[in-house]
C-alpha cells in the first residue's frame, strides 16, 4: 500500500521553531506560560469544584430514579425549594433596583461620608453570616426596633418567609453594587449630556440610555446575588424560624436529612439545587450575550 505524502511533510516549508508548534490548536506565541498555567487551572478546578460536585451526583445516583423522585417530591422538600429559589429571586430583583441606586449615588456624587458609605456596602461580605442573622432577627423580632412598629401595622417579618427574603437581600446587596459600580464609573456623562441636547427627558435618558448600558453588569450582579441567596444558610436560619412548609429553606432541609443519616436524600436535594443553579447560569449567560451584542463584533 502506497501512502500519499502528507502536506505536513512538504519539503518546501521550512520547519517552524519547536516552541511554535507544540499544539495544533494553540495560537503560536513566543511568550511562554500556557502549558503551566493551564495545568494548574485544570488541577485546581477539578480539586475544588468538579470532584466535590461529582461526588455529590454519584451519591445521589445510588438512590435510583424512583427513590430520587420520591425524595425530592415530598411536599416539605418542594416547599423548601420553592422558598429558597423563589425567595432568592425576589431578593435578587429587589437588590438589582436598590443596588443600582446605591452604585449610582456612590459613583456620581461627592458628599461627606461617601467613603464610609462605600465601605458599608462590603459589610455583608465580611460579617459572619450568623452574626448578620442574629442581628436581623433581633431587629425584626416582635419586640425589636423595626419589628415592633411593623407588628403594629400587622406586618410580621421575623419567622416568616418575609424574614427569609430580608436576610437574602442583606447578603446579596454587595454583589449588585460592586458589579454595577465600575461600569457606571466608566459610563461617560457625555452620553447623558448628548441625550439632554436631543431633548430627552431625564426619565427617557435613564430608560433608553443609562439602563441599557448598565444591563450586562446588572444581569451579572443580579445573577451573583441570586446564586449566593439560593444557597444561603447562616444568616437565614435565625430569622426564618424554620417552620416546615412555611419558612424552612432547602439548605436547612439538607442539614436535617444529614442529621437523620439520610445522606442520599440530602444529596438529592443538593443535586436539584445544583441543576437549577446550572440552568440559571446558562440562561443568564445567554441573556448577557444578547445584551452585549453591540460590543466589538
Amino acid at each position: 500500500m502506497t501512502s500519499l505524502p502528507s502536506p505536513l511533510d512538504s519539503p518546501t516549508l521550512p520547519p517552524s521553531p519547536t516552541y511554535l508548534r507544540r499544539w495544533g490548536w494553540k495560537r503560536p506565541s513566543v511568550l511562554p506560560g500556557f502549558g503551566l498555567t493551564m495545568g494548574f487551572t485544570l488541577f485546581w478546578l477539578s480539586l475544588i469544584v468538579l470532584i466535590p460536585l461529582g461526588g455529590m451526583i454519584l451519591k445521589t445516583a445510588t438512590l435510583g430514579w424512583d427513590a430520587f423522585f420520591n425524595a425530592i417530591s415530598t411536599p416539605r422538600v418542594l416547599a423548601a425549594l420553592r422558598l429558597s429559589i423563589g425567595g432568592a429571586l425576589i431578593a435578587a430583583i429587589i437588590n438589582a433596583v436598590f443596588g443600582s441606586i446605591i452604585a449610582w449615588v456612590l459613583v456620581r456624587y461627592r458628599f461627606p461620608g461617601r467613603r464610609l458609605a462605600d465601605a458599608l456596602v462590603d459589610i455583608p461580605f465580611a460579617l459572619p453570616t450568623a452574626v448578620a442573622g442574629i442581628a436581623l432577627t433581633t431587629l425584626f423580632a416582635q419586640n425589636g426596633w423595626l419589628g415592633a412598629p411593623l407588628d403594629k401595622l400587622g406586618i410580621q417579618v421575623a419567622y416568616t418567609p418575609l424574614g427569609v427574603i430580608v436576610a437574602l437581600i442583606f447578603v446579596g446587596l454587595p454583589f449588585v453594587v460592586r458589579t454595577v459600580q465600575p461600569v457606571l464609573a466608566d459610563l461617560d456623562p457625555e452620553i447623558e449630556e448628548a441625550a439632554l441636547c436631543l431633548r430627552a427627558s431625564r426619565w427617557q435618558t435613564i430608560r433608553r440610555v443609562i439602563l441599557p448600558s448598565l444591563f450586562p453588569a446588572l444581569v451579572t450582579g443580579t445573577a451573583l446575588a441570586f446564586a449566593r441567596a439560593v444557597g444561603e444558610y447562616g444568616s437565614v436560619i435565625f430569622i426564618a424560624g424554620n417552620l416546615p412548609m412555611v419558612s424552612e429553606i432547602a439548605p436547612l432541609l439538607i442539614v436535617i436529612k444529614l442529621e437523620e443519616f439520610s445522606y442520599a436524600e440530602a444529596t438529592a436535594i443538593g443535586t436539584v439545587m445544583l441543576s437549577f443553579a446550572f440552568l440559571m447560569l446558562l440562561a443568564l449567560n445567554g441573556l448577557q450575550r444578547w445584551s452585549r451584542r453591540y460590543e466589538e463584533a
Partner: protein
Amino acid sequence: MDITVSGLIKGFGSFTALHGVDLDIHNGELMAILGPSGSGKTTLLRLLAGLEQPDAGTIRFGAKDVGGNLPGDRDVGFVFQHYALFRHMSVFENVAFGLRVRPRKTRPPEAEIRKRVNDLLNLVQVDWLTNRYPSQLSGGQRQRVALARALAIEPQVLLLDEPFGALDAKVRRELRRWLRDLHRRLGMTTVFVTHDQEEALDLADRVVVMGQGRVEQIGAPQELYDAPANAFVYRFLGETNELQASLHAGRVRVQNAPIAEAARIDLSGAIKEADGTLFVRPHLLALTPDPTGVATVTHVSLVGAMLRVEVETHDGQNLHVEIPRGPSIDLVPRPGERVSLMVRGGLFVAA
C-alpha cells in the same frame, strides 16, 4: 440665528475659566473658537449649548435671552469631541433618538422617522452603515453619525467641540472639506471649537482667538494672520520670529540699525519711544548672500513649496526664514554661509 454673548463669566471653584467674554455670531456664519488648551474655548461652547450655566453675563439667541434654558430648549445641535454615541443603539437608532423621545403629540409617525433618518444618513454619506453599532465604525464614520444625530432635531445652531480632534490627519482634511460643503448647503449658524489653527483658518468665516479666558481677537482668518492685534495672537497663529527692537521717532530699530523704509510695521498703540519686541513672520524676512552679513545659515529644509532656512545671528539668536521655492533649486543658501537679513513687515509691541 444671531447669537449675542455679553460679559460672560464662568468659574469652576477657584479657577476662572472665562473672564467676561463678549461675542457676536452672525446668522448663517461658520465660526471657529480657537485657543490653546485651558483658554476656556470649550467652556464657552458648553455655555452656548446650555450644558453649563454662566456666573454672570447674558447669552441671546436672536432677541431671546436663553440664560436659564436647558440645552433642549435652545434649538442647538451639539457634537461632542468623542461623539458620545449611544453604544447599545444601531446607527439608525442613534439618529432616530431625538425624534423618538419627543412627546407623543409632536412625535412624527414611524414611517416619517424612517424617512427623516435615512435622509440624514444620506446627507452625511453613511447610509450604508444603518444597522451597524458604533463600535463597528471608524472615527470619521462616528463623527458623521454624531453630526446626523445632532441635525435630526432640526436645530437652529450647530455646535461642535473639537470636531476633528480624534481623527488622523488624512481623514481630518477630508472631513474638513466635507463640513465646509455641508455648511454651505445647510446655511446653519455653526460654531466649532479647535486648537488647530490651520483648521480654524482654513474652515471658518470668522475666528475667535481665545487665551486664558479672554477673547484676544475676532476676525476673518486673513485679518488675524496679517494683522494680529497683540503678541498673544502673533505667537499663537503661525510661526513667528521675535527680535529685540526699539522705537525711536516713529522708526523701529533692530540692534540700532533702522529697518528698511519699505517695511510695513504695525505699532500696536501710539507709542513714541520704547524698547520692545518686533514680531516677524518667517516669510517676511528676506535673505541675501553677503560675506559681511550679520547671520550664518545653520539649516536648510528643501521639502515643500517653501525653502525653510534657519539662521543664527552673530548675537546668538535663531531665526526662521521662509523663501518661496522656484522650479529649480539653484539659489539655495548652504549651511555655513553668511547672509544679511531684511525685515519686510511685522508688529512692534512695546515691552
